[in-house]
């Protein structure tokens, strides 16, 4: 059982929870995730560790309500507990000084991106962050991102905040105006797919973090498998980060729908 220390609403359907998990706080690095379960009949779902405080022994999770399990978790209040939290899982992000890094976050993908932005900046990179969402309501963590970025570009589909347009337009504008050494893209699969297609044109190395369906998170089930460079990989142990130019996003998007029919029936 892991107690919830505090809760904050970013928007109607996006919640930030600070959770007691001292061992995980001590071991985690940017890029790591946890698997959590809420309630005895709860499902195991993966969530990125957005931040950690080793002194207080807490980790921060940012959750977007999309279905049964995320709804249950978002309904928890300070003092309540998550039934299980296990981690840190996955490979940590490879952080290095490469020059200029463009970090693109789509929707709640900004949450997993934040620790990477922070680490990239601390490693001495110039960091340009692009936050994209459907509308201004869904732009999260702008202030925190700005703290560790040399520049923040906000893009919304409807123009209600920042520039009007898709994340790809933002990426393209930066690549065209200056030398970019690395792009990091985290968000919905379709967004990562189009960022990858865009940066491929300019031959800019691009890293993405995949959010496949998972069960155990330890390599035991294969639910999280994706094709990368023609080979099957397990996202939970080989990833979650991969070279975006090599990921078969169409297969991944297809597999994400595996249970949509089953879950709707409930």
């Amino acid at each position, binding site marked *: 059982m892991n107690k919830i220390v505090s809760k904050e609403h970013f928007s109607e359907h996006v919640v930030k929870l600070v959770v007691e998990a001292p*061992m*995980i706080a001590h*071991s985690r690095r940017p890029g790591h995730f946890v698997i959590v*379960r809420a*309630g005895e*009949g*709860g*499902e*195991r779902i993966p969530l990125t560790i957005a931040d950690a405080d080793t002194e207080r022994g807490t980790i921060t999770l940012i959750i977007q309500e999309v279905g*049964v*399990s995320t709804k*249950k978790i978002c309904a928890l209040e300070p003092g309540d507990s998550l*039934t*299980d*939290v*296990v*981690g*840190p*899982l996955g490979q940590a992000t490879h952080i290095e000084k490469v020059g200029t890094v463009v970090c693109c976050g789509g929707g709640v993908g900004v949450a997993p991106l934040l620790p990477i932005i922070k680490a990239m900046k601390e490693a001495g990179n110039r960091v340009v962050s692009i936050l994209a969402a459907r509308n201004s309501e869904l732009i999260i963590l702008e202030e925190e991102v700005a703290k560790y970025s040399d520049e923040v570009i906000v893009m919304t589909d409807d123009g209600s905040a920042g520039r009007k347009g898709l994340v790809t337009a933002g990426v393209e504008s930066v690549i065209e105006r200056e030398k970019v050494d690395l792009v990091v893209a985290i968000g919905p699969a379709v967004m990562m797919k189009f960022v990858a297609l865009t940066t491929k044109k300019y031959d800019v190395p691009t890293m993405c973090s995949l959010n496949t369906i998972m*069960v*155990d998170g*330890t*390599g*035991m*089930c*294969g*639910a999280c*498998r*994706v*094709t990368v460079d023609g080979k*099957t990989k397990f996202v939970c*142990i080989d990833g979650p980060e991969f070279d975006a130019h090599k990921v078969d996003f169409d*297969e991944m998007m*297809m*597999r994400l*729908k*595996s*249970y949509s029919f*089953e*879950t709707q029936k*409930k």
Partner: protein
Amino acid sequence: KERTATPRVVMPQLEPGYRVTCNEEVNQGLSAEQALIEASRCLDCPDPQCMQGCPVAVDIPGFIKNVERGEFLEAAAVLKNTSALPAVCGRVCPQEKQCESRCIYNKMKKPAVAIGYLERFAADYERVEHSRHPVEVVRPESNGIRVAVVGSGPAGLSFAGDMVKRGYDVTVYEALHEIGGVLKYGIPEFRLPNSVVEAEIDGLRALGVNFVKDCVVGKTLSYDDLHTLGYKGIFVASGAGLPRFMGIPGENYIGVMSSNEYLTRINLMGAGRPGEDTPVLKGRRVAVIGGGNTAMDSVRTARRQGAEVAMIVYRRGEAEMPARVEEVAHAKEEGIMFMNLCNPVEYLSDENGRVRAMKIQRMELGEPDESGRRSPQPIPGAVEEIPVDLVIVSVGVSPNPLIPNAISQLEVSRRGTIVVDDATMRSSLSDLYAGGDIVRGGATVILAMGDGRHAAQSMHEALSK
């Protein structure tokens, strides 16, 4: 004479028509009367060959003679001298290949003494008896030395039991949210009820074993962290959890999954039961690829999940199937279809990426190779398409790479298993021992359990110096 004339006992079991509608244990266990009669068949051989067939050399005639005398608790005590989990082994050991294969009755062309059934009987008797009349647990005197166990499957549990009884302060770390390893997430309720495993775990708890779930050693805690926490010895029993796929076209379509995923969703997560959030795909026509215990468990689970057609697709013949003979027989009674000498070569999907058919290559047994085994060869052109809407791939597992990846100094074989000294179970690191499937690749419960006991013995010797 009279003993050898008695027919082998028949295990009472649930009707096939009923049992496919539920998850209840198929084998109902022997009655005391049946056990007494069966025990009387044992000839108490002066040089009992059955013991040579048991990987841990259980004193078979010793416990059976106690059963015959009606000393059931005494029989259980004899079992516990060698096996930490007799109620489990009595149910899941491949007896027909081990102890029972060497019983003298085989030489007389008669069915072997039902050693497994009797083992289960004695262990179950003791469990029920102790739950009715709890015996006071005497905690062994502590020697103050801390040891850690990685993984709570049969290897980890038996190691923990032996060490706690020797006075060690034992902590078992488990990655999942339940204790028990494959015994919980893999082997289904209809073959090994969770209550049987739970009773063993409760017993260990009562002795003072500390269980920490949701903790992945190598991730949550590093090897160095374990030292900081004061552990003087570490036993790695992390199993062979990594599922293998065949690498054929279409294997990533929706509805093609590993048996580990399928069984975990259902056994560990309760998928499909009311009040459980985890979903699982249901198929009307389900194909399970493979011929081992995992394949049998998956296909019989699919039947219980409502599949109209549930089939085994196996590239060799039935005689070569690694599964326990009893499971194959039970599967047949439950209407499972067997497609032997068949190998899938491709899966086909509908427009949503959901599997709708498999292409099967028919095989035949070729000339014997150097090892004398006739290996299956494809029959040229004999490929057919069979409609399926769920495919469970059960073609084996590889060692879990988490620990080898996390502890770089650890010597690991080409197959990814941890290399240990056969006699001591000690790895290339002096305080780290390993056993069970992480050392053997996919093996058996009894071998895992035996490894746990050997490792406990040699770690104790090393720490007592």
